[in-house]
């Protein structure tokens, strides 16, 4: 009797999941974004006791991404899932665990801002961070970081009719970026004056209304804004810094590093990486570069 009740419950659960999945499919029919499908996880794919095995078994995962960086991690008011290059790479990782990256019931794309990425990883609130997360020695003291899956550098965004050709032309002048970001420090080091706002879109507003002559941050982000305001804004100058964007994980699960690197290497080789790049950063005019060289995992 007891067994049969369980059997009924299990059947009901399976049917219900099927129905929900069908609903999910119906909802995303209109999207032209290619779906990243969950891979089937064979028995023994992840070694017993590894965190990947735990995640694959529980079937849910929390991923920290940015919500406010067009092209990298951006979530509009009406979006279920954020979009961007960071998110696409996150989907590849999630899919490798055998979890459907489109299913928000299983994958929680938590917003992580710059200040809470390390605390969230340490508390276990998120399992992975892909939030334009520059790899630095100081951060590696606290959390695991591997990659980079993307190398970017800082450029300058000015009005289309501006004479400014590079950051050197802006010495002593106000250049906008996000308060407390690495970009602000680089601006100050270059001789210009970094003025901080809450988000990059606010900086765009300040450049457009002429209060601030230029803004500066990673070229990929600027390209997105230049494309959004075509004819009004342009990206100028060479990259004057180098940021290595990597994946964050908790130091409690060092085994994740090899797995992340494995998934990234596979994506580099089978073209998924380049494909994700073209779909997210391609439209704003950034050329798809060669995949970067991954750091070796700490032994």
């Amino acid at each position, binding site marked *: 009797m007891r067994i049969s009740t369980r059997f009924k419950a299990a059947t009901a659960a399976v049917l219900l999941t099927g129905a929900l999945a069908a609903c999910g499919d119906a909802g995303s029919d209109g999207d032209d974004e290619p779906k990243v499908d969950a891979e089937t996880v064979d028995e023994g794919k992840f070694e017993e006791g590894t965190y990947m095995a735990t995640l694959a078994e529980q079937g849910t995962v929390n991923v920290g991404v940015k919500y406010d960086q067009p092209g990298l991690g951006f979530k509009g008011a009406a979006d279920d899932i954020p979009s961007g290059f960071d998110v696409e790479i996150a989907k590849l990782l999630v899919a490798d665990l055998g979890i459907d990256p489109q299913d928000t019931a299983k994958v929680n794309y938590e917003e992580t801002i710059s200040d809470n990425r*390390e605390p969230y990883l340490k508390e276990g609130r998120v399992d992975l961070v892909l939030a334009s997360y520059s790899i630095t020695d100081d951060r590696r003291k606290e959390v695991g970081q591997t990659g980079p899956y993307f190398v970017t550098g800082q450029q300058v965004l000015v009005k289309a009719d501006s004479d400014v050709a590079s950051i050197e032309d802006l010495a002593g002048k106000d250049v906008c970026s996000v308060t407390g970001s690495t970009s602000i420090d680089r601006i100050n080091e270059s001789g210009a004056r970094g003025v901080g*706002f809450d988000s990059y879109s606010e900086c765009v507003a300040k450049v457009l209304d002429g209060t601030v002559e230029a803004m500066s941050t990673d070229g990929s982000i600027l390209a997105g804004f230049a494309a959004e305001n075509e004819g009004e804004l342009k990206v100028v100058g060479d990259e004057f810094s180098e940021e290595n964007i990597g994946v964050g994980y908790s130091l409690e699960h060092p085994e994740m590093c090899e797995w992340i690197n494995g998934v990234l290497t596979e994506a580099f080789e089978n073209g998924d990486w380049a494909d994700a790049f073209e779909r997210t950063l391609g439209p704003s005019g950034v050329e798809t570069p060669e995949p970067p060289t991954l750091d070796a995992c700490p032994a």
Partner: protein
Amino acid sequence: MDPVLNDFQPYLLGFAYTLLLFVFAGVLSTLLGVVLVAMRVGPVAVLRAAGATYVTVVRNTPLVIIFGFFTFVAPIFGVKFGWLDIRIGDVVLDDLFGAAVVALSLYTSAFVCEALRSGVNAVPLGQAEAARAIGLPFGGVLREVVLPQAIRASVPPLASVQIALIKNTSVAAVFGVAEAVAQMRSFTNNFSSERTGIFIMFAIGYVVIVEVFSFGATRLERRYRVAT
């Protein structure tokens, strides 16, 4: 804590901006607050209504929105502070600083007005009547008789308002002024492993400023008490 101690200059520079914002906005908000309270307790109905409306609107609006108005909306209508460009060493007081001072002053003045009004209400009506009886005009009644007593009564609430202002200057961090909180965020971004120490260092900075200010306010309160 070490990152801050090893690189103390940004810390000092940050609090220099915090203090400057406080001094400018503190003085301007007090002046404007006095004008507002004069309007609110004055005999002219239109001014009374205008003062009350101002207090209602500004006091009920979050400071961030007022900041946003002066940094994002006002420039569209041509209200810019581009003429402001004072450079003293590393400290640059530019248009963004100007917008911050204006936002903070307008916001705080509503609270100054109400703090003063509570003091005015504490002055017995007979005082104003007596002042009128000896032939003083409204300005004289206010200046010579009512306000001196009202200010004494409102030193504690006024001090609270100004202390709130000291801490409110931190909103300017995300409106282009590199004050203490903005510097703190740079520190926590670069030295994420030292976050707690950095928070404590910056909290100490604010505590010191507020303590110095409230020490002054307490002394003032005591002196006034003797005089009455």
